[in-house]
C-alpha cells in the first residue's frame, strides 16, 4: 500500500537540506511512503517565530523541494501573531511560489480573527490548510489550539476544508469535537500508535475524513503507518486514509498550479 504523508519535517540528519531530504526519502521508500508534505524548515521548530524567522523557515522548505518536487510538497509556515507579514508570505510562497498551502502551529490559537484571516487567504488560493491541535491533560501553552478551537474555526468557515493535525492529541475527545464539522479532516500523526485510534476516527467522522501523517522525522514513519495497517478496516478504507484523502484534498491547489501527480 502506498502512503502520502501529510506531516513531515526536515529533522533527518544531514549537512545540507538536500542531504536531509535524501535521507528522509531513503527511509520513506523502505515503508512505502511515496509522497511527503513538509513544513517549518530546518530544526529547531520555532513556536513563536518572528516575521524574519518565518521567511527563513519557508525559504528552507522551498529549498527542500528543489530536487524533490516529484516526491515532496511544502507548506508555508504562518503565524497569527504576524498577520500582515504572514499574508505576504502566503503571497510569496503559495500564490507566486511552489508551496501548496499553510501550516499553523502554536503561536496563536486558531479560533482568533487573526488566524481566520490567514485561513481565508489560503482558501482563496485553494491551498491546503493544516492546523496543529492538542488537548493536553496537563494543560496547553497559551497559543496552542485545542480540537475544540479547530471546531470553532471550522464552524465559522464551513466552506473551507482544513486538516486538524494529531486528531487533537487526545484523539478520543478530538474526533468527537471535530465530528460535526464536515470540512475538517482528522490527521493521525505524532502520537503513540494506540490501538483503536483509527477505528474510532473512521466510526465518528467517516473514512473520507481521516488522513495519514507521521510527524517524521521526530516520529517514526513505521509507528504511524502501523495505526493504519494495524486496523481490521477494509483495504479500501485503509487506502483512503493512506493516500486517497490527501490526494483529493490537494487536487484543487495542484490543478491551480498546473501540477500533475
Amino acid at each position: 500500500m502506498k502512503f502520502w504523508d501529510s506531516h513531515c519535517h526536515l529533522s533527518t540528519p544531514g549537512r545540507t537540506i538536500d542531504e536531509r531530504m535524501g535521507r528522509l526519502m531513503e527511509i520513506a521508500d523502505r515503508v512505502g511512503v511515496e509522497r511527503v508534505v513538509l513544513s517549518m524548515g530546518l530544526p529547531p521548530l520555532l513556536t513563536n517565530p518572528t516575521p524574519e524567522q518565518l521567511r527563513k523557515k519557508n525559504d528552507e522548505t522551498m529549498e527542500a523541494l528543489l530536487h524533490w518536487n516529484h516526491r515532496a510538497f511544502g507548506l508555508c509556515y504562518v503565524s497569527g501573531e504576524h498577520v500582515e507579514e504572514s499574508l505576504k508570505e502566503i503571497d510569496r510562497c503559495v500564490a507566486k511560489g511552489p508551496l501548496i498551502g499553510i501550516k499553523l502551529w502554536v503561536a496563536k490559537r486558531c479560533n482568533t480573527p487573526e488566524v481566520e484571516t490567514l485561513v481565508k487567504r489560503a482558501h482563496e488560493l485553494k491551498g491546503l490548510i493544516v492546523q496543529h491541535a492538542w488537548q493536553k491533560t496537563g494543560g496547553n501553552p497559551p497559543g496552542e489550539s485545542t480540537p475544540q478551537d479547530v471546531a470553532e474555526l471550522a464552524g465559522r468557515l464551513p466552506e473551507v476544508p482544513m486538516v486538524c493535525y494529531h486528531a487533537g492529541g487526545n484523539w478520543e475527545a478530538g474526533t468527537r469535537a471535530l465530528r460535526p464539522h464536515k470540512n475538517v479532516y482528522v490527521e493521525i500523526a505524532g502520537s503513540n500508535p494506540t490501538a483503536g485510534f483509527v477505528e474510532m476516527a473512521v466510526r465518528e467522522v467517516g473514512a473520507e475524513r481521516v488522513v495519514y501523517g507521521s510527524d517524521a522525522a521526530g516520529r517514526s514513519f513505521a509507528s504511524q503507518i502501523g495505526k493504519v495497517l494495524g486496523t481490521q478496516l477494509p483495504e479500501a478504507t485503509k487506502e483512503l486514509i493512506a493516500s486517497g484523502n490527501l490526494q483529493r484534498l490537494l487536487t484543487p491547489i495542484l490543478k491551480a498550479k498546473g501540477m500533475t501527480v
Partner: protein
Amino acid sequence: MSTPIIDTNVFLGRWPFRRLPLDEAALLAKALRERGVKQAWAGSFDALLHHDVDGVNGRLAAMCQRTDEKLFLPLGTVNPALPDWEEDLRRCQEKYRMRGIRVFPNYHRYALNDAAFVKLLKLATERGMLVQLAVSMEDERTQHPLVQVPQVDLAPLVEVIKTVPGVRLQLLNAFRSLRPDLLLKLVNAGHVSVEIATLEGVAGIEELLKQVPVERLLFGSLAPLFYFEAAALKLQESKFSDVQDKAIRRENAARLMAR
C-alpha cells in the same frame, strides 16, 4: 521467510481506560500467531491498579495456560510498596512457574533507589528471574486527569544496578523519556536491555544501534495497547544485517530468558 518473533512486551486483561480491539486473550493470541510471533511475554493490565497482586498473578497464569500456553509466557507482578511482597515473588516462581516478573514503579509509587526495590532486584536475581521494568504505559499528555502517572525516573538505576551482580533487567516502554546518554550508562552498568515499542524517530533501530550493542535490543510491541504493526514495521524501516535482524526478533530474547 522472516525469523519468528519473540514479543517481549504484551499484556492480557483489560486496559483500565478503554476497550482495545484485541483485548480478548484468544483474539490476541490469534493475531500474534498470524504475525509470526512464536512466544509472547505477557503481563497483566490489572497489575497497574489492583492491590491483590496474587489474585492478578494467578489469573494471568491461568489465562496464559488456558489460551495458548506455548505462546504466552506469563510474567507476574510484584509491588514492593505492598506488605508481604516477598511472598508474591515466591509464588510467582514456585506456584505459578513464572520465569520473570514485571514491575511498575510509577503506578506503584516507589523510586528506583528505594530499599524495598533494591531488595526485590536482589531476591529476583537470586532466584534467577528476569525483571521487566515498565517505564511508562501511555503518553502523559493523554492520561485520564485523575490518573496522571509520571514516567519512571531511571537516573538512580545506574548505581543500583551496580549493587546487584548478575541482575537481568529489561526496560519496557522506555523511549519517551530515556535519553541516549542515560541509556548508555545503564547498559554499561549491568545487564540492561530495552525493547522497541516506544522507540520513535525514522529508522529508529538503525540509529539506536549506533549507541547500544545489538545484544541489548529486543522486540516488543506493547500489544494490544499498541497496534502490533507499529513495532513490526520498525524492523522494515531500519537497515541492518540479517544477523542483527535475527538477534532483535528472537535470539536476544531467547538468550535473556534462558540464562
